[in-house]
Protein backbone atom coordinates (compact mmCIF):
# COMPACT_ATOMS: atom_id res chain seq x y z
CA UNK A 1 0.00 0.00 0.00
CA UNK A 2 2.72 2.45 1.03
CA UNK A 3 4.68 1.70 -2.09
CA UNK A 4 1.73 2.42 -4.27
CA UNK A 5 1.19 5.96 -3.06
CA UNK A 6 4.86 6.70 -3.57
CA UNK A 7 7.19 8.28 -1.07
CA UNK A 8 7.15 11.69 -2.77
CA UNK A 9 3.39 12.08 -2.50
CA UNK A 10 3.62 10.88 1.09
CA UNK A 11 6.24 13.49 1.88
CA UNK A 12 4.21 16.25 0.26
CA UNK A 13 0.97 15.34 2.08
CA UNK A 14 2.79 14.93 5.35
CA UNK A 15 4.43 18.33 5.16
CA UNK A 16 1.15 19.96 4.14
CA UNK A 17 -0.49 18.30 7.12
CA UNK A 18 2.21 19.65 9.44
CA UNK A 19 1.72 23.14 8.04
CA UNK A 20 -2.06 22.99 8.39
CA UNK A 21 -2.00 21.64 11.91
CA UNK A 22 0.91 23.64 13.29
CA UNK A 23 -1.13 26.63 14.55
CA UNK A 24 -3.69 24.29 16.06
CA UNK A 25 -1.18 22.63 18.35
CA UNK A 26 1.43 25.33 18.85
CA UNK A 27 -0.80 28.32 18.84
CA UNK A 28 1.31 30.07 21.40
CA UNK A 29 4.58 30.07 19.51
CA UNK A 30 4.01 32.89 17.13
CA UNK A 31 7.70 33.35 16.34
CA UNK A 32 7.85 30.05 14.47
CA UNK A 33 4.58 30.96 12.80
CA UNK A 34 6.14 34.25 11.69
CA UNK A 35 8.99 32.38 10.10
CA UNK A 36 6.52 30.08 8.39
CA UNK A 37 4.74 33.09 6.90
CA UNK A 38 8.06 34.46 5.64
CA UNK A 39 8.75 31.05 4.19
CA UNK A 40 5.46 31.15 2.22
CA UNK A 41 6.48 34.46 0.65
CA UNK A 42 10.02 33.42 -0.10
CA UNK A 43 9.00 30.08 -1.53
CA UNK A 44 6.66 31.74 -4.02
CA UNK A 45 9.29 34.32 -4.94
CA UNK A 46 12.01 31.72 -5.44
CA UNK A 47 9.68 29.39 -7.36
CA UNK A 48 8.60 32.17 -9.70
CA UNK A 49 12.23 33.06 -10.27
CA UNK A 50 13.04 29.45 -10.94
CA UNK A 51 10.27 29.36 -13.53
CA UNK A 52 11.91 32.28 -15.28
CA UNK A 53 15.57 31.52 -14.76
CA UNK A 54 15.71 27.76 -14.50
CA UNK A 55 12.93 26.67 -16.82
CA UNK A 56 12.65 29.40 -19.41
CA UNK A 57 16.36 30.19 -19.37
CA UNK A 58 15.65 33.92 -19.11
CA UNK A 59 18.50 35.16 -16.97
CA UNK A 60 16.69 37.99 -15.29
CA UNK A 61 18.18 39.16 -12.01
CA UNK A 62 15.37 41.59 -11.20
CA UNK A 63 13.00 39.20 -9.47
CA UNK A 64 13.47 40.61 -5.97
CA UNK A 65 12.77 44.01 -7.48
CA UNK A 66 9.53 42.63 -8.87
CA UNK A 67 8.61 41.34 -5.40
CA UNK A 68 9.20 44.79 -3.92
CA UNK A 69 7.20 46.51 -6.65
CA UNK A 70 4.33 44.19 -5.75
CA UNK A 71 4.59 45.18 -2.10
CA UNK A 72 4.70 48.91 -2.81
CA UNK A 73 1.88 48.91 -5.32
CA UNK A 74 -0.53 46.91 -3.16
CA UNK A 75 0.37 48.88 -0.05
CA UNK A 76 -0.08 52.24 -1.75
CA UNK A 77 -3.29 51.15 -3.41
CA UNK A 78 -4.80 50.03 -0.11
CA UNK A 79 -3.58 52.99 1.91
CA UNK A 80 -4.51 55.73 -0.55
CA UNK A 81 -7.79 54.38 -1.92
CA UNK A 82 -9.06 52.50 1.08
CA UNK A 83 -9.96 49.46 -0.99
CA UNK A 84 -9.74 46.20 0.93
CA UNK A 85 -6.24 44.69 0.75
CA UNK A 86 -7.81 41.40 -0.25
CA UNK A 87 -8.72 43.03 -3.56
CA UNK A 88 -5.56 45.13 -3.76
CA UNK A 89 -3.24 42.12 -3.57
CA UNK A 90 -4.32 40.43 -6.82
CA UNK A 91 -4.75 43.81 -8.53
CA UNK A 92 -1.24 44.81 -7.51
CA UNK A 93 0.11 41.51 -8.79
CA UNK A 94 -1.47 42.16 -12.18
CA UNK A 95 -0.15 45.73 -12.18
CA UNK A 96 3.32 44.50 -11.28
CA UNK A 97 3.25 41.96 -14.08
CA UNK A 98 2.25 44.71 -16.51
CA UNK A 99 4.90 47.19 -15.37
CA UNK A 100 7.73 44.69 -15.30
CA UNK A 101 6.81 43.04 -18.57
CA UNK A 102 6.61 46.41 -20.25
CA UNK A 103 9.84 47.87 -18.87
CA UNK A 104 12.03 44.79 -18.56
CA UNK A 105 10.36 41.97 -20.46
CA UNK A 106 9.68 43.55 -23.81
CA UNK A 107 13.06 45.20 -24.28
CA UNK A 108 15.18 42.45 -22.80
CA UNK A 109 13.56 39.34 -24.20
CA UNK A 110 15.00 39.95 -27.62
CA UNK A 111 18.44 40.10 -26.06
CA UNK A 112 20.86 37.27 -25.46
CA UNK A 113 21.15 35.70 -22.02
CA UNK A 114 23.98 37.72 -20.59
CA UNK A 115 22.52 41.04 -21.70
CA UNK A 116 19.29 40.21 -19.91
CA UNK A 117 21.34 39.72 -16.75
CA UNK A 118 22.90 43.14 -16.93
CA UNK A 119 19.79 44.88 -18.14
CA UNK A 120 17.59 43.47 -15.40
CA UNK A 121 20.26 44.17 -12.79
CA UNK A 122 20.29 47.78 -13.90
CA UNK A 123 16.52 47.91 -13.60
CA UNK A 124 16.68 46.59 -10.06
CA UNK A 125 19.55 48.97 -9.29
CA UNK A 126 17.52 51.92 -10.51
CA UNK A 127 14.57 51.17 -8.21
CA UNK A 128 15.98 52.70 -4.98
CA UNK A 129 16.65 55.98 -6.77
CA UNK A 130 13.14 55.93 -8.19
CA UNK A 131 11.82 55.53 -4.64
CA UNK A 132 13.98 58.39 -3.42
CA UNK A 133 12.72 60.66 -6.15
CA UNK A 134 9.09 59.81 -5.43
CA UNK A 135 9.57 60.32 -1.70
CA UNK A 136 6.29 62.17 -1.41
CA UNK A 137 4.27 59.02 -2.03
CA UNK A 138 6.64 56.15 -1.35
CA UNK A 139 8.34 57.45 1.74
CA UNK A 140 11.75 57.35 0.03
CA UNK A 141 14.68 55.83 1.85
CA UNK A 142 12.81 55.57 5.16
CA UNK A 143 10.31 53.22 3.63
CA UNK A 144 6.57 53.10 3.24
CA UNK A 145 4.81 52.63 6.56
CA UNK A 146 1.35 51.91 7.93
CA UNK A 147 0.30 49.57 5.18
CA UNK A 148 -3.23 48.48 6.13
CA UNK A 149 -3.61 44.92 7.43
CA UNK A 150 -5.74 42.43 5.49
CA UNK A 151 -8.65 43.16 7.75
CA UNK A 152 -9.13 44.77 11.13
CA UNK A 153 -8.06 42.86 14.22
CA UNK A 154 -6.45 40.18 12.11
CA UNK A 155 -4.40 37.68 14.07
CA UNK A 156 -1.18 36.01 13.08
CA UNK A 157 -2.99 32.70 12.65
CA UNK A 158 -5.14 34.30 10.00
CA UNK A 159 -2.10 35.65 8.17
CA UNK A 160 -0.63 32.20 8.44
CA UNK A 161 -3.56 30.60 6.65
CA UNK A 162 -3.91 33.33 4.04
CA UNK A 163 -0.18 33.06 3.30
CA UNK A 164 -0.52 29.32 3.10
CA UNK A 165 -3.38 29.69 0.63
CA UNK A 166 -1.37 32.03 -1.58
CA UNK A 167 1.56 29.64 -1.36
CA UNK A 168 -0.60 26.65 -2.35
CA UNK A 169 -2.38 28.37 -5.22
CA UNK A 170 0.80 29.91 -6.64
CA UNK A 171 2.74 26.70 -6.50
CA UNK A 172 -0.12 24.73 -7.97
CA UNK A 173 -0.33 27.08 -10.93
CA UNK A 174 3.45 27.18 -11.39
CA UNK A 175 3.39 23.38 -11.35
CA UNK A 176 0.68 23.45 -14.00
CA UNK A 177 2.68 25.87 -16.15
CA UNK A 178 5.77 23.75 -15.88
CA UNK A 179 3.83 20.70 -17.00
CA UNK A 180 1.79 22.48 -19.65
CA UNK A 181 2.67 22.83 -23.29
CA UNK A 182 4.44 26.11 -22.46
CA UNK A 183 6.66 24.30 -19.99
CA UNK A 184 7.37 21.59 -22.55
CA UNK A 185 8.13 24.25 -25.13
CA UNK A 186 10.92 25.61 -22.93
CA UNK A 187 12.38 22.17 -22.41
CA UNK A 188 12.19 21.70 -26.16
CA UNK A 189 13.93 25.02 -26.81
CA UNK A 190 16.60 24.11 -24.30
CA UNK A 191 17.15 20.59 -25.61
CA UNK A 192 17.29 21.49 -29.26
CA UNK A 193 16.52 25.03 -30.25
CA UNK A 194 16.50 24.77 -34.04
CA UNK A 195 14.22 21.76 -34.08
CA UNK A 196 11.85 23.43 -31.63
CA UNK A 197 11.66 26.56 -33.76
CA UNK A 198 11.05 24.60 -36.92
CA UNK A 199 8.23 22.71 -35.21
CA UNK A 200 6.35 25.95 -34.84
CA UNK A 201 7.26 27.27 -31.39
CA UNK A 202 7.06 31.05 -31.27
CA UNK A 203 9.89 31.63 -28.85
CA UNK A 204 9.25 35.30 -28.22
CA UNK A 205 5.59 34.76 -27.38
CA UNK A 206 6.31 31.90 -24.99
CA UNK A 207 9.04 33.84 -23.23
CA UNK A 208 6.81 36.86 -22.82
CA UNK A 209 4.08 34.67 -21.39
CA UNK A 210 6.39 33.18 -18.78
CA UNK A 211 7.84 36.57 -17.99
CA UNK A 212 4.41 37.99 -17.26
CA UNK A 213 3.33 34.97 -15.21
CA UNK A 214 6.45 34.82 -13.11
CA UNK A 215 6.23 38.56 -12.45
CA UNK A 216 2.63 38.07 -11.39
CA UNK A 217 3.53 35.50 -8.74
CA UNK A 218 6.53 37.45 -7.46
CA UNK A 219 4.28 40.51 -7.23
CA UNK A 220 1.59 38.51 -5.45
CA UNK A 221 4.01 37.25 -2.83
CA UNK A 222 5.42 40.75 -2.43
CA UNK A 223 1.99 42.30 -2.00
CA UNK A 224 1.05 39.86 0.75
CA UNK A 225 4.44 40.38 2.41
CA UNK A 226 3.88 44.13 2.54
CA UNK A 227 0.47 43.86 4.16
CA UNK A 228 1.71 41.28 6.63
CA UNK A 229 4.68 43.34 7.83
CA UNK A 230 2.84 46.64 7.56
CA UNK A 231 5.81 48.40 6.01
CA UNK A 232 8.23 48.02 3.16
CA UNK A 233 11.49 49.83 2.51
CA UNK A 234 14.20 50.02 -0.15
CA UNK A 235 16.39 47.84 2.06
CA UNK A 236 14.39 44.91 0.68
CA UNK A 237 16.12 45.70 -2.61
CA UNK A 238 19.52 45.25 -1.04
CA UNK A 239 21.97 42.51 -1.62
CA UNK A 240 20.84 40.31 1.24
CA UNK A 241 17.31 39.41 0.00
CA UNK A 242 18.68 39.10 -3.52
CA UNK A 243 21.27 36.61 -2.41
CA UNK A 244 18.83 34.73 -0.23
CA UNK A 245 16.45 34.25 -3.15
CA UNK A 246 19.15 33.24 -5.59
CA UNK A 247 20.53 30.77 -3.07
CA UNK A 248 17.07 29.24 -2.55
CA UNK A 249 16.60 28.76 -6.24
CA UNK A 250 20.01 27.25 -6.66
CA UNK A 251 20.03 25.15 -3.53
CA UNK A 252 16.77 23.50 -4.46
CA UNK A 253 17.88 22.84 -8.01
CA UNK A 254 17.67 25.15 -11.02
CA UNK A 255 14.86 24.19 -13.32
CA UNK A 256 13.43 21.53 -11.03
CA UNK A 257 9.90 21.97 -9.82
CA UNK A 258 9.56 21.88 -6.08
CA UNK A 259 13.27 22.65 -5.82
CA UNK A 260 12.93 26.29 -4.91
CA UNK A 261 10.48 25.40 -2.15
CA UNK A 262 12.97 23.01 -0.60
CA UNK A 263 15.64 25.67 -0.95
CA UNK A 264 13.32 28.14 0.78
CA UNK A 265 12.70 25.76 3.69
CA UNK A 266 16.39 25.28 4.29
CA UNK A 267 17.36 28.90 3.88
CA UNK A 268 14.52 30.66 5.67
CA UNK A 269 14.90 28.49 8.76
CA UNK A 270 18.67 28.23 8.33
CA UNK A 271 19.17 31.95 8.08
CA UNK A 272 16.99 32.52 11.15
CA UNK A 273 19.27 30.11 12.92
CA UNK A 274 22.31 32.03 11.71
CA UNK A 275 20.71 35.24 12.86
CA UNK A 276 20.22 33.74 16.30
CA UNK A 277 23.83 32.60 16.53
CA UNK A 278 24.93 36.06 15.44
CA UNK A 279 27.26 34.87 12.69
CA UNK A 280 27.74 36.87 9.55
CA UNK A 281 24.92 35.60 7.40
CA UNK A 282 25.97 37.08 4.09
CA UNK A 283 29.52 35.79 4.17
CA UNK A 284 28.27 32.30 4.87
CA UNK A 285 25.47 32.54 2.31
CA UNK A 286 27.82 33.86 -0.37
CA UNK A 287 30.23 31.03 0.26
CA UNK A 288 27.34 28.55 0.32
CA UNK A 289 26.17 29.67 -3.13
CA UNK A 290 29.62 28.98 -4.55
CA UNK A 291 30.00 25.67 -2.75
CA UNK A 292 26.60 24.36 -3.83
CA UNK A 293 27.39 25.21 -7.44
CA UNK A 294 30.65 23.31 -7.15
CA UNK A 295 29.61 20.26 -5.21
CA UNK A 296 25.88 19.94 -5.71
CA UNK A 297 25.17 21.56 -9.07
CA UNK A 298 21.73 20.00 -9.22
CA UNK A 299 20.80 21.19 -5.77
CA UNK A 300 18.88 19.33 -3.10
CA UNK A 301 16.66 17.77 -5.75
CA UNK A 302 19.66 15.56 -6.42
CA UNK A 303 18.85 13.76 -3.19
CA UNK A 304 15.37 13.02 -4.54
CA UNK A 305 16.97 11.54 -7.65
CA UNK A 306 19.29 9.42 -5.54
CA UNK A 307 16.39 8.02 -3.50
CA UNK A 308 14.49 7.33 -6.72
CA UNK A 309 17.46 5.45 -8.11
CA UNK A 310 17.83 3.36 -4.98
CA UNK A 311 14.13 2.50 -5.14
CA UNK A 312 14.42 1.55 -8.79
CA UNK A 313 17.34 -0.72 -8.09
CA UNK A 314 15.58 -2.32 -5.15
CA UNK A 315 12.53 -3.01 -7.27
CA UNK A 316 14.71 -4.50 -9.95
CA UNK A 317 16.27 -6.85 -7.41
CA UNK A 318 12.90 -7.91 -6.07
CA UNK A 319 11.69 -8.71 -9.54
Amino acid sequence: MLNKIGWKKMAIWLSLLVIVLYPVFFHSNSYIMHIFILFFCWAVLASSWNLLFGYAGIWSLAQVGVFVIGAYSSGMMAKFTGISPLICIPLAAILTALIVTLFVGLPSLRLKGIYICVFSLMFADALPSVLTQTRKWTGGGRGFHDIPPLWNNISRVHYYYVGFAIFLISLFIIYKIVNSSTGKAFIALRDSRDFALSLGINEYKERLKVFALSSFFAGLAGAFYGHYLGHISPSSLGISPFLLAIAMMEMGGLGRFPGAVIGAVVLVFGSELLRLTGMSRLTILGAAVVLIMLFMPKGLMQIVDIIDNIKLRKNAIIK
Partner: protein
Amino acid sequence: MEMLGEAMISGIIMGSLFGAMAVGLTIIYGVIKMFNFAHGIIAILGAYLAWWLFSSVHLNLIGAIAFSFFLMLLVGILIFTLIIRVLLRTPRWPYSTIIASIGLGIFLQNLLLQIFGPRIKSMPVFFEGNIKVGGITIGWHEISLILIVLSLMLILRIFFKKTTLGNAMRAVAQSPEGAKIVGINTLKIFSYAYMMGIAVTGLSGVFLSTKCYVIPHRGWDWMVKGFIIVAFGGLGNVMGAYYAALLLGILEALVVTYVGTVWVWNFWFVSFLVILLIRPEGLLGGRMG
Protein backbone atom coordinates in the same frame (compact mmCIF):
# COMPACT_ATOMS: atom_id res chain seq x y z
CA MET B 1 33.97 77.52 -21.58
CA GLU B 2 35.92 76.78 -18.43
CA MET B 3 33.05 74.70 -17.19
CA LEU B 4 33.14 72.67 -20.36
CA GLY B 5 36.90 72.28 -20.11
CA GLU B 6 36.72 71.08 -16.53
CA ALA B 7 33.92 68.69 -17.36
CA MET B 8 35.99 67.26 -20.20
CA ILE B 9 39.04 66.81 -17.97
CA SER B 10 37.10 65.15 -15.19
CA GLY B 11 35.41 62.96 -17.81
CA ILE B 12 38.74 61.85 -19.19
CA ILE B 13 40.01 61.04 -15.71
CA MET B 14 37.00 58.99 -14.66
CA GLY B 15 36.84 57.46 -18.14
CA SER B 16 40.46 56.34 -17.85
CA LEU B 17 39.89 54.80 -14.44
CA PHE B 18 36.74 52.93 -15.40
CA GLY B 19 38.39 52.00 -18.68
CA ALA B 20 41.14 50.24 -16.78
CA MET B 21 38.52 48.38 -14.76
CA ALA B 22 36.47 47.39 -17.80
CA VAL B 23 39.57 46.10 -19.56
CA GLY B 24 39.91 43.38 -16.95
CA LEU B 25 36.32 42.35 -17.55
CA THR B 26 36.72 42.30 -21.30
CA ILE B 27 39.92 40.24 -21.22
CA ILE B 28 38.16 37.57 -19.19
CA TYR B 29 35.12 37.60 -21.43
CA GLY B 30 37.13 37.75 -24.65
CA VAL B 31 39.20 34.68 -23.88
CA ILE B 32 36.94 32.51 -21.70
CA LYS B 33 33.54 33.82 -22.88
CA MET B 34 32.32 33.99 -19.30
CA PHE B 35 31.16 37.02 -17.39
CA ASN B 36 32.68 37.72 -14.05
CA PHE B 37 29.86 38.98 -11.84
CA ALA B 38 32.27 39.41 -8.96
CA HIS B 39 34.15 41.97 -10.98
CA GLY B 40 33.42 45.09 -8.97
CA ILE B 41 34.33 43.41 -5.70
CA ILE B 42 37.60 42.29 -7.23
CA ALA B 43 38.45 45.94 -7.97
CA ILE B 44 37.53 46.82 -4.39
CA LEU B 45 39.62 43.94 -3.10
CA GLY B 46 42.61 45.28 -5.02
CA ALA B 47 42.09 48.70 -3.50
CA TYR B 48 41.73 47.28 0.00
CA LEU B 49 44.86 45.16 -0.30
CA ALA B 50 46.90 48.15 -1.45
CA TRP B 51 45.42 50.30 1.30
CA TRP B 52 46.19 47.69 3.92
CA LEU B 53 49.76 47.20 2.66
CA PHE B 54 50.23 50.95 2.66
CA SER B 55 48.63 51.95 5.95
CA SER B 56 49.07 48.87 8.13
CA VAL B 57 52.12 47.10 6.71
CA HIS B 58 53.70 50.50 5.98
CA LEU B 59 55.08 49.70 2.58
CA ASN B 60 55.78 52.74 0.45
CA LEU B 61 53.18 53.69 -2.16
CA ILE B 62 54.81 52.00 -5.15
CA GLY B 63 55.69 48.94 -3.10
CA ALA B 64 52.13 48.62 -1.82
CA ILE B 65 50.65 48.88 -5.29
CA ALA B 66 53.15 46.45 -6.79
CA PHE B 67 52.67 43.93 -4.01
CA SER B 68 48.89 44.18 -4.20
CA PHE B 69 49.13 43.50 -7.94
CA PHE B 70 51.12 40.38 -7.17
CA LEU B 71 48.60 39.30 -4.52
CA MET B 72 45.76 39.81 -7.01
CA LEU B 73 47.49 37.48 -9.47
CA LEU B 74 47.41 34.88 -6.70
CA VAL B 75 43.75 35.60 -5.99
CA GLY B 76 43.05 35.15 -9.70
CA ILE B 77 44.72 31.79 -9.98
CA LEU B 78 43.09 30.66 -6.76
CA ILE B 79 39.58 31.52 -7.93
CA PHE B 80 40.22 30.04 -11.34
CA THR B 81 41.57 26.72 -10.07
CA LEU B 82 39.09 26.25 -7.27
CA ILE B 83 35.90 27.48 -8.93
CA ILE B 84 35.96 28.49 -12.58
CA ARG B 85 37.90 25.53 -13.92
CA VAL B 86 35.56 23.10 -12.22
CA LEU B 87 32.44 24.85 -13.48
CA LEU B 88 33.71 25.20 -17.06
CA ARG B 89 33.71 21.41 -17.31
CA THR B 90 29.95 21.23 -16.74
CA PRO B 91 27.58 21.60 -19.67
CA ARG B 92 25.62 24.38 -17.97
CA TRP B 93 28.64 26.57 -17.27
CA PRO B 94 27.15 29.79 -18.65
CA TYR B 95 24.48 29.52 -15.91
CA SER B 96 26.62 28.23 -13.15
CA THR B 97 29.50 30.67 -13.58
CA ILE B 98 27.07 33.58 -13.31
CA ILE B 99 25.53 32.33 -10.07
CA ALA B 100 28.80 31.21 -8.57
CA SER B 101 30.44 34.55 -9.30
CA ILE B 102 27.52 36.41 -7.74
CA GLY B 103 27.98 34.24 -4.65
CA LEU B 104 31.71 34.82 -4.68
CA GLY B 105 31.22 38.56 -4.98
CA ILE B 106 28.91 38.70 -1.99
CA PHE B 107 31.22 36.47 -0.01
CA LEU B 108 34.21 38.70 -0.68
CA GLN B 109 32.20 41.85 -0.04
CA ASN B 110 31.16 40.72 3.41
CA LEU B 111 34.55 39.27 4.18
CA LEU B 112 36.07 42.69 3.49
CA LEU B 113 33.39 44.30 5.60
CA GLN B 114 34.16 42.01 8.54
CA ILE B 115 37.91 42.34 8.31
CA PHE B 116 38.22 46.04 7.58
CA GLY B 117 34.96 47.43 8.89
CA PRO B 118 32.46 49.70 7.18
CA ARG B 119 34.59 52.86 7.17
CA ILE B 120 35.51 54.41 3.84
CA LYS B 121 39.02 53.73 2.64
CA SER B 122 41.02 55.74 0.20
CA MET B 123 44.56 55.81 -1.06
CA PRO B 124 46.61 59.01 -0.91
CA VAL B 125 47.17 60.96 -4.10
CA PHE B 126 50.39 60.22 -5.95
CA PHE B 127 51.46 63.82 -6.45
CA GLU B 128 50.36 66.93 -4.62
CA GLY B 129 49.74 70.26 -6.27
CA ASN B 130 48.16 71.31 -9.49
CA ILE B 131 48.70 73.44 -12.55
CA LYS B 132 46.55 75.94 -14.33
CA VAL B 133 46.13 75.69 -18.08
CA GLY B 134 44.01 78.37 -19.69
CA GLY B 135 41.94 78.94 -16.61
CA ILE B 136 41.39 75.25 -15.93
CA THR B 137 42.97 73.72 -12.86
CA ILE B 138 44.32 70.19 -13.14
CA GLY B 139 45.99 68.29 -10.35
CA TRP B 140 49.33 66.59 -10.99
CA HIS B 141 47.77 63.48 -9.53
CA GLU B 142 45.04 63.48 -12.15
CA ILE B 143 47.58 63.95 -14.92
CA SER B 144 49.62 61.08 -13.55
CA LEU B 145 46.52 58.85 -13.44
CA ILE B 146 45.68 59.56 -17.08
CA LEU B 147 49.25 58.80 -18.08
CA ILE B 148 49.45 55.66 -15.97
CA VAL B 149 46.27 54.22 -17.49
CA LEU B 150 47.43 55.23 -20.95
CA SER B 151 50.72 53.43 -20.44
CA LEU B 152 48.88 50.44 -19.00
CA MET B 153 46.88 50.29 -22.20
CA LEU B 154 50.03 50.56 -24.28
CA ILE B 155 51.67 47.78 -22.30
CA LEU B 156 48.60 45.58 -22.78
CA ARG B 157 48.60 46.37 -26.48
CA ILE B 158 52.23 45.40 -26.82
CA PHE B 159 51.60 42.29 -24.73
CA PHE B 160 48.75 41.15 -26.98
CA LYS B 161 50.54 42.00 -30.21
CA LYS B 162 54.12 41.04 -29.54
CA THR B 163 54.42 38.31 -26.96
CA THR B 164 53.79 34.64 -27.56
CA LEU B 165 51.42 34.42 -24.61
CA GLY B 166 49.49 37.48 -25.75
CA ASN B 167 49.16 36.07 -29.23
CA ALA B 168 48.02 32.75 -27.83
CA MET B 169 45.34 34.56 -25.84
CA ARG B 170 44.08 36.32 -28.91
CA ALA B 171 44.17 33.04 -30.79
CA VAL B 172 42.01 31.33 -28.16
CA ALA B 173 39.64 34.29 -28.20
CA GLN B 174 39.20 34.21 -31.95
CA SER B 175 39.08 30.48 -32.57
CA PRO B 176 39.38 27.98 -29.73
CA GLU B 177 39.43 25.12 -32.24
CA GLY B 178 42.20 26.74 -34.24
CA ALA B 179 44.13 27.28 -31.03
CA LYS B 180 43.90 23.59 -30.16
CA ILE B 181 45.12 22.68 -33.63
CA VAL B 182 48.31 24.71 -33.31
CA GLY B 183 48.96 23.01 -29.99
CA ILE B 184 47.77 25.60 -27.49
CA ASN B 185 46.60 24.25 -24.15
CA THR B 186 43.42 26.29 -24.05
CA LEU B 187 42.65 25.64 -20.38
CA LYS B 188 46.06 26.97 -19.40
CA ILE B 189 45.48 30.09 -21.49
CA PHE B 190 42.12 30.50 -19.78
CA SER B 191 43.84 30.49 -16.41
CA TYR B 192 46.44 33.07 -17.49
CA ALA B 193 43.76 35.31 -18.96
CA TYR B 194 41.71 35.06 -15.79
CA MET B 195 44.71 35.88 -13.61
CA MET B 196 45.57 38.80 -15.80
CA GLY B 197 42.01 40.10 -15.87
CA ILE B 198 41.77 39.93 -12.08
CA ALA B 199 45.14 41.59 -11.51
CA VAL B 200 44.42 44.45 -13.92
CA THR B 201 41.03 44.91 -12.27
CA GLY B 202 42.65 45.04 -8.85
CA LEU B 203 45.07 47.66 -10.09
CA SER B 204 42.22 49.71 -11.48
CA GLY B 205 40.58 49.52 -8.07
CA VAL B 206 43.73 50.99 -6.50
CA PHE B 207 43.66 53.89 -8.95
CA LEU B 208 39.93 54.39 -8.42
CA SER B 209 40.46 54.51 -4.67
CA THR B 210 42.70 57.54 -5.05
CA LYS B 211 39.82 59.41 -6.69
CA CYS B 212 36.66 58.13 -5.05
CA TYR B 213 35.61 56.57 -1.79
CA VAL B 214 35.84 52.84 -1.55
CA ILE B 215 33.42 50.76 0.44
CA PRO B 216 32.64 47.13 -0.35
CA HIS B 217 29.08 47.53 -1.61
CA ARG B 218 30.10 50.02 -4.28
CA GLY B 219 31.44 47.08 -6.25
CA TRP B 220 28.07 46.29 -7.77
CA ASP B 221 27.68 49.73 -9.29
CA TRP B 222 31.21 49.52 -10.63
CA MET B 223 30.49 46.15 -12.16
CA VAL B 224 27.35 47.35 -13.92
CA LYS B 225 29.28 50.36 -15.25
CA GLY B 226 32.01 48.01 -16.40
CA PHE B 227 29.47 45.89 -18.25
CA ILE B 228 28.03 48.86 -20.08
CA ILE B 229 31.48 50.02 -21.10
CA VAL B 230 32.36 46.57 -22.33
CA ALA B 231 29.10 46.31 -24.24
CA PHE B 232 29.83 49.68 -25.82
CA GLY B 233 33.35 48.81 -26.85
CA GLY B 234 32.43 45.36 -28.13
CA LEU B 235 32.55 42.27 -25.95
CA GLY B 236 36.12 41.11 -25.72
CA ASN B 237 37.64 44.14 -27.41
CA VAL B 238 40.41 45.50 -25.15
CA MET B 239 41.13 48.83 -26.80
CA GLY B 240 37.41 49.19 -27.53
CA ALA B 241 36.67 49.11 -23.79
CA TYR B 242 39.21 51.87 -23.17
CA TYR B 243 37.84 54.13 -25.91
CA ALA B 244 34.25 53.45 -24.84
CA ALA B 245 35.12 54.31 -21.24
CA LEU B 246 36.67 57.62 -22.29
CA LEU B 247 33.63 58.45 -24.39
CA LEU B 248 31.13 57.51 -21.68
CA GLY B 249 33.24 59.21 -19.00
CA ILE B 250 33.18 62.49 -20.90
CA LEU B 251 29.46 62.19 -21.61
CA GLU B 252 28.79 61.42 -17.94
CA ALA B 253 30.77 64.47 -16.85
CA LEU B 254 28.77 66.60 -19.28
CA VAL B 255 25.54 65.20 -17.87
CA VAL B 256 26.70 65.99 -14.32
CA THR B 257 27.75 69.51 -15.25
CA TYR B 258 24.84 70.54 -17.39
CA VAL B 259 21.90 68.32 -16.40
CA GLY B 260 22.42 67.21 -12.84
CA THR B 261 23.87 64.36 -10.79
CA VAL B 262 20.48 62.73 -10.28
CA TRP B 263 20.39 61.83 -13.95
CA VAL B 264 23.68 59.98 -14.10
CA TRP B 265 22.28 56.53 -13.55
CA ASN B 266 19.51 57.16 -16.07
CA PHE B 267 22.16 58.26 -18.52
CA TRP B 268 23.99 54.93 -18.17
CA PHE B 269 20.73 53.04 -18.47
CA VAL B 270 19.78 54.85 -21.67
CA SER B 271 23.28 54.46 -23.14
CA PHE B 272 23.05 50.76 -22.53
CA LEU B 273 19.64 50.53 -24.18
CA VAL B 274 20.82 52.55 -27.15
CA ILE B 275 23.88 50.42 -27.77
CA LEU B 276 21.89 47.21 -27.40
CA LEU B 277 19.29 48.34 -29.87
CA ILE B 278 21.61 49.89 -32.43
CA ARG B 279 24.79 47.86 -32.40
CA PRO B 280 24.63 44.83 -30.13
CA GLU B 281 28.16 43.87 -31.20
CA GLY B 282 29.50 47.13 -29.76
CA LEU B 283 30.88 50.20 -31.44
CA LEU B 284 34.17 48.62 -32.44
CA GLY B 285 33.22 45.00 -33.03
CA GLY B 286 33.63 42.14 -30.67
CA ARG B 287 36.62 39.98 -31.47
CA MET B 288 39.86 40.37 -29.64
CA GLY B 289 41.83 41.96 -32.44
